[in-house]
């Protein structure tokens, strides 16, 4: 019998992010609880839970409540195909970044704000949602931010909304992650997505490009693609559409990956963070735009 304090959902900003309390994610969720969480996720786009010391199995079980839990990651971490936990270790990421820059002058230094991304948009069916748990985090520093891509879309002027409604863009994974997606490297996975995605559950339209993986808009000139993407990137990171979360051990963030982008840890290049996170990924459907056209794969497979 699962009883206790009623669930409370406390918004952190007017559009995105709410802290949920009164639920124990280590235990099976009854239908009423799950419906509350699902409604909250659709409304607030990112849910935060504090003090949830889940085992790996419980983390996966919670994920399974939402759909199929995928492999850890389409490309990195493929060494352990049986694992469905994607482990993010800031120290390892820092090392690989140092190696990347030491290798060649052809690679530009990355810009912290160019790391905004929606998870896995270089596959044709990017994640539906991600569930990230703090295993080991510093006392301060290491925050993550999310942005509400639907609010960002709505705040565009009408002529620009109309323009971007009809566009499609290429998203890629290069053999070295971490630079703006338009700069170099061998493409190992790529997909073409609508620039504006229609949310399958809410019908909301949302900007569906972000600097880390989007390479270019198709069917327009290079300068048009560059300028439009810069405009959209500035739009999605306007602070009024964002929420910033300070982690503690056993904090969990769950986001609707169809309508959000995120940046984290935001200070990876500035602070020598000791920060370990574990992510469970919910398999996504294939996006479509306002005209009903679906995304297509250019390289690589469906992710499941």
């Amino acid at each position, binding site marked *: 019998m699962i009883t206790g304090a009623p669930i409370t959902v406390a918004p952190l*900003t007017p559009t995105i992010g709410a802290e949920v309390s009164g639920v124990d994610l280590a235990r099976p969720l009854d239908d009423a609880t799950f419906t509350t969480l699902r409604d909250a996720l659709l409304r607030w786009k990112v849910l935060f839970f504090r003090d949830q010391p889940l085992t790996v199995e419980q983390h996966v079980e919670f994920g399974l409540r939402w759909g199929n839990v995928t492999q850890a990651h389409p490309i990195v971490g493929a060494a352990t195909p049986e694992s469905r936990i994607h482990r993010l270790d800031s120290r390892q990421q820092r090392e690989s970044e140092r190696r990347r820059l030491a290798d060649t002058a052809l690679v530009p230094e990355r810009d912290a*704000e160019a790391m905004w991304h929606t998870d896995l948009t270089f596959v044709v069916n990017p994640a539906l949602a991600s569930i990230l748990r703090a295993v080991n985090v510093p*006392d*301060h520093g290491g925050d993550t931010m999310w942005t509400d891509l639907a609010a960002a879309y709505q705040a565009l002027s009408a002529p620009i909304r109309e323009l971007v409604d009809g566009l499609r863009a290429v998203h890629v994974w290069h053999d070295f992650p971490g630079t703006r997606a338009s700069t170099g490297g061998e493409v190992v996975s790529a997909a073409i997505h609508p620039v504006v995605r229609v949310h399958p559950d809410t019908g909301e339209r949302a900007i569906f490009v972000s600097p880390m993986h989007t390479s270019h808009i198709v069917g327009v000139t290079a300068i048009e693609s560059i300028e439009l993407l810069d405009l959209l990137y500035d739009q999605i990171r306007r602070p*009024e559409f964002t929420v*910033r979360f*300070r982690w503690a051990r056993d904090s969990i963030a769950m986001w609707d990956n169809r309508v959000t982008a995120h940046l984290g840890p*935001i200070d990876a290049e*500035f602070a020598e963070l000791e920060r370990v996170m574990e992510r469970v990924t919910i398999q996504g459907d294939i996006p479509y735009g306002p005209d009903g056209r679906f995304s297509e794969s250019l390289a690589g497979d469906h992710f499941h």
Partner: protein
Amino acid sequence: MTKHMLRMTPMTSCLGAVVTDIDLDRDSAALRDALDRWRVVVVAGIGADMRSLERFADAWDSEAVVDHGSAIFDAAVGAGQWTIESSWQPTPPRVVIARCERAPGLGGDTMWSDLAAAYARLSPQLQAAAESLVAIHVSDEGAASHPVVRVGGDGRSRSLYVDERWTTHIDGLTRRERDALMRIFVHQENTNALTVRHRWRAGDVVIWDSTCTAHRSLPAGASPWVGDVIRLRPPHAEVGP
């Protein structure tokens, strides 16, 4: 007088700290040290009266200008852009103290950006170029010119000293050149890792070093920020590199 140890919690890996359980009279010196280190200090929920804040302000040996109202954090009147407080004045305030009487509605957070860190993150070539430049800061009420790079009281520390709201021109540059450099500078200020974000509660006092921070506010929902602002103006104009 011995310094009382403050209970201080850093807010980010770059700037901002929250202090609790303090006494403004007793802890004045320690609080000023905290401000030197963290640039933005949130005295959470202290609910200080204006008399104790003004006594606290006296320690800076500056002219204190007190305002009551809401405009400083009103995104609708321009505070939604990165703003160096009153930089259109020839001697802008060094320190600003804001006391929140009524917290803004959901969404009315304020952010600060660390302009020393913003300067430090520029490439050496751009740092060198910035050091030779002078910018014009303009409002309806006046205008002033300031070096693009500001040198701290210690004669060494440097910070970027341009903002989105008041900085209109850079001496000797064309419009196109100005735009290119300003985009680079504002990009630094916009780098989230160099910012801190505070959600106001009634009774909060926030103190910031305005020689090396810019602030911006987000649109408040139901109600605006209401409170008192003390701007501490130095006795004379300060200089660039």
